[in-house]
């Protein structure tokens, strides 16, 4: 202080305590924004208690004029779930400074959270007039329109937001619109662009991977899911999808280790336990498979895929009575799937209820267009019943389906199934089943036939694919059983 310099500004001795009111009587007004920075610092580090204390003090000192204090108080109220109160405070802020778009934005946001989407869009439009360069306003407008089911308007707003500034969130919302409308291709396009823009966003990567999975481009799906997992090794959605792909390729042990991560993250996920169950099934640990599937069923009693798998495992365990129950439950939830009826028929055949088995096969044949296995199993049953002519019809039907499939793709059939078909063909004296020989000789990709489960939900696309693959072999295993009988019959004939 002694060597005080003389700059232009006003200066007083900087001793800490002295510079208070220097003008007498009329009390000095405190600076309204005096502690805004402190409020802000406490707010961003989520120390809400301290924040509230300062806000209270600040509002007392300024008699409720400190706009920022009210603003943060409102934000905290909103975080605590008191949306109505926060809305009122934001409205106070908007009164204190009517030219500020931010206050209007927050009013709209609170309205949005209260479910008043229409009112929110109005306020957002108002805010957009004050600030035309804010992507957030347009993004939120778009989201409001999604909730109002005005998808075209929503798309326009979101595209506008993207033009102003690109954000992952906007891409996600746009993609969601396309998915809601059911336009997979467009959704994928959006997500591809989004991934290009931010290649490390695991949510984008996972969603794109799942979309690829849904349309059957497995290579790309795996690539994206893998990328998602490198950035976030505990992303359970990606793990579940990647795991189910591994299952299709028979990597049950790898899939199981991956599932451990999911099991600790979301221990009550039905698709998880379904997939774990089917892993054990693939490893021929049937009891463990049944326990896991039963847990899955307990968690999601109305999921037909789990019931389907339970039916399948019980068939393999030769517990036909139990299998019957699970399968009929599955049919109650999903009455449009041929394979289910076929499995039911297999169970019924083993329960010596041929009459109903036949009816189930009829239903299956009538529902299904592509699966030759149904016809084959039906033919075997008919043959065993001595109804040779009907068996022949089914056999020919099966050949037709096989030819059809051979044209469209190169598939490999279960060897048991092929063998069975050849045997049956010989028994029915239709000559060599030429259809098969070729397809067996060039086993290319190990992709299974069924694409039925594609319609399924996001998280378990392949758990049941796996099941279907197994379904075929188990059904073939069934048809092997009576093959002993068959042969003896043949002997009798000749």
């Amino acid at each position: 202080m002694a060597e005080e310099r003389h700059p232009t500004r006003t200066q007083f001795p900087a001793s800490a305590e002295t510079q208070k009111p220097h003008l007498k009587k009329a009390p000095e007004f405190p600076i309204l924004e005096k502690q805004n920075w402190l409020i802000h610092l406490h707010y961003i580090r989520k120390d809400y208690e301290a924040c509230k204390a300062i806000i209270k003090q600040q509002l007392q000192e300024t008699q409720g004029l400190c706009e920022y204090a009210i603003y943060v108080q409102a934000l905290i109220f909103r975080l605590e779930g008191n949306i109505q109160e926060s809305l009122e405070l934001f409205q106070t802020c908007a009164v204190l400074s009517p030219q500020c778009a931010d206050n209007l934005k927050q009013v709209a946001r609170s309205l949005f959270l209260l479910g008043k989407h229409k009112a929110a869009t109005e306020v957002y439009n108002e805010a957009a007039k004050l600030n035309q360069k804010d992507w957030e306003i347009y993004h939120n407008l778009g989201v409001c329109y999604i909730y109002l089911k005005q998808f075209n308007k929503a798309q326009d707003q979101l595209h506008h937001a993207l033009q102003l500034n690109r954000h992952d969130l906007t891409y996600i919302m746009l993609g969601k619109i396309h998915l809601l409308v059911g336009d997979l291709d467009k959704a994928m396009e959006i997500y591809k662009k989004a991934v290009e823009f931010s290649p490390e966003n695991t949510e984008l990567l996972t969603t794109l991977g799942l979309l690829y999975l849904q349309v059957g481009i497995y290579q790309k799906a795996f690539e994206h899911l893998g990328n998602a997992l490198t950035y976030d090794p505990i992303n359970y959605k990606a793990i579940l999808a990647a795991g189910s792909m591994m299952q299709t390729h028979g990597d049950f042990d790898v899939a199981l280790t991956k599932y451990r991560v999911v099991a600790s993250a979301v221990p009550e996920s039905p698709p998880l336990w379904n997939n774990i169950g089917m892993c054990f099934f693939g490893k021929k640990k049937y009891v463990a498979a049944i326990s896991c599937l039963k847990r899955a069923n307990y968690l999601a009693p109305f999921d037909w895929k789990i019931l389907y798998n339970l039916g399948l495992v019980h068939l393999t365990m030769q517990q036909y009575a139990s299998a019957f129950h699970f399968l009929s439950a599955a049919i109650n939830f999903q009455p449009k799937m041929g394979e289910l009826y076929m499995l039911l028929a297999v169970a019924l055949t083993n329960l010596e209820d041929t009459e109903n088995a036949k009816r189930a096969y009829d239903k299956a044949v009538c529902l299904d267009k592509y699966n030759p296995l149904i016809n084959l199993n039906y033919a075997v049953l008919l043959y065993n019943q001595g109804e040779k002519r009907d068996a022949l019809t089914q056999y020919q039907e099966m050949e037709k389906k096989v030819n059809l499939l051979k044209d469209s793709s190169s598939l490999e059939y279960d060897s048991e199934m092929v063998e069975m078909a050849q045997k049956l063909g010989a028994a029915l004296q239709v000559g060599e089943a030429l259809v098969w020989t070729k397809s067996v000789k060039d086993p290319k990709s190990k992709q299974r036939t069924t694409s039925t489960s594609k319609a399924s939900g996001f998280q378990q696309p392949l758990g049941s694919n796996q099941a279907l693959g197994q379904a075929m072999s188990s059904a073939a295993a069934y048809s092997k059983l009576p093959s002993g009988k068959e042969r003896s019959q043949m002997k009798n004939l000749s």
Partner: protein
Amino acid sequence: MAAAPPSDFNGGKVESSEAGSKWLDAHYDPLASIHTFSACLALADLHGDGEYKLVVGDLGPGGQQPRLKVLKGPRVLTESPLSELPAAAVTFLKDHHEPRTPALALASGPCVYVYKNLRPYFKFSLPPLPVNPLEEDLWDQAKEDRIDPLTLKEMLEGIREKAEVPLSVQSLRFLQLELSEMEAFVNQHKSKAIKRQTVITTMTTLKKNLADEDAVSCLVLGTENRELLVLDPEAFTTLATMKLPSVPAFLEVSGQFDVEFRLAAACRNGNVYILRRDSKCPKYCIELSAQPVGLVRVHKVLVVGSNQDSLHGFTHKGKRLWTVQMPAAILTMNLLEQHSRGLQAVMAGLANGEVRIYQDKTLLNVIRTPDAVTSLCFGRFGREDNTLIMTTRGGGLIIKILKRTAVFVEGGGELGPPPAQATKLSVPRKTRLYVDQTLREREAGTAMHRTFQTDLYLLRLRAARAYVQALESSLSPVSATAREPLKLHAVVQGLGPTFKLTLHLQNTSAARPLLGLLVCFLHNEALYALPRAFFKVPLLVPGLSYPLETFVESLSDKGISDVIKVLVLREGQSAPLLSAHINMPVSEGLAAA
């Protein structure tokens, strides 16, 4: 520093995770009572004696007693009270005089207090903001009593609605007053010139014209009215003013003021603005869509921590390079610079009591602390080059020294598969009984199935029969006939021997009232006595539930109970519309007597 007695810290708690920790625990005092932010911590050789001191702008417990503390080693050297809370503390060289001891600048409210040799040296106040000329004019008129308070109020309100320049506090306060108070207010304040003052929110330093370690630096201030000011280190005049779209919360500067510099300001609207020497307004903008909680520059990368628990790396042009997710909320961030190895890294104090050190997106080290760390500072302290100073939420002070042999390598933190992958799956076990049952099912599956099917058919048949019977004899408590849609339920109250039986009868038709209904009770007359076993029901308005009460006297003393049947009949018809069976409770009153 190294000589600080380790007696007062709890070694087991402060220890870093690995046994071969890179850090020496120098000091831990959970009761140091230091409540501050990273911005208010500074390390400097304040006396020019080669002993680096720690300067703390302490907010005090609950932000009540702001103090300026200077620590030498773990001891508080000096402590002086402050009139207002400190927003930032920095040390800087302000001139070329020898000895080259740095000055200390403390931003607090609208002023910067500069200390030299720990003695107050200079106080800089922010220039007052321009006032609205219209507003000024109005108050001038008020001074000369040419305007009455009511018109003043109206005019001021008009200004508030439209004008670019906001009103002064005096006018705002005036607008809030009731009519009766206005006169007095005007008289009290009219002689005073109105003024608008803003406050400093953040402060940092910027080298003036040389990049050297000991070059003269300017102060850079961020203010509440969305401006950045660069101050001359000697004259404390404003060298440059820059405008921002929002209020700055954190600043990060590189370069020299006279040559070229880059200024990054993390603002309250969730954006980070990047300015350059010749730009009066932001050149680039990073939109975080979250609140920034810290801003650190590592070499050429701007690292921003967001309140969505993540760290982002950006180029100086605002392009996003990477993102790392944190396990908990980030409380504070600062730069770790190890000159001897040329290492620069980011330290982030997390809410779960960890301090994580990142170089780009690779985790170098994790320090676990007994309490969440709220402020961090790394540098030379005492005579030790690499010292880490942390203060905790509870006001504790932790000082750690980086071992001279310690080398940060990639993978010092977590790597490889997540730990959950090692835990076994909890597959539900099956009992022996289950296996036995399975075997039984295999043997006798067909028989089981048949029995089950037969029983199921029988069950369905019985259910159907019972249902038909109920329908035929109107045994159900809900009457489904189109003409008399009725609902009945009954409540029995009391312990006995007298019970109160309340029937709730509701007409469920949409509009038609019901008239001419009768209620009849059937009961064993040896057991129960009712005052009226048969009575008329009043008119039933649709939708309302009518409580019909009657008393029931239990006659038996043997503690037995029976069923009372309630029938609702239409006048002139023998078949009941509906009926209810009421299981009477055992009379407890009689049993006790």
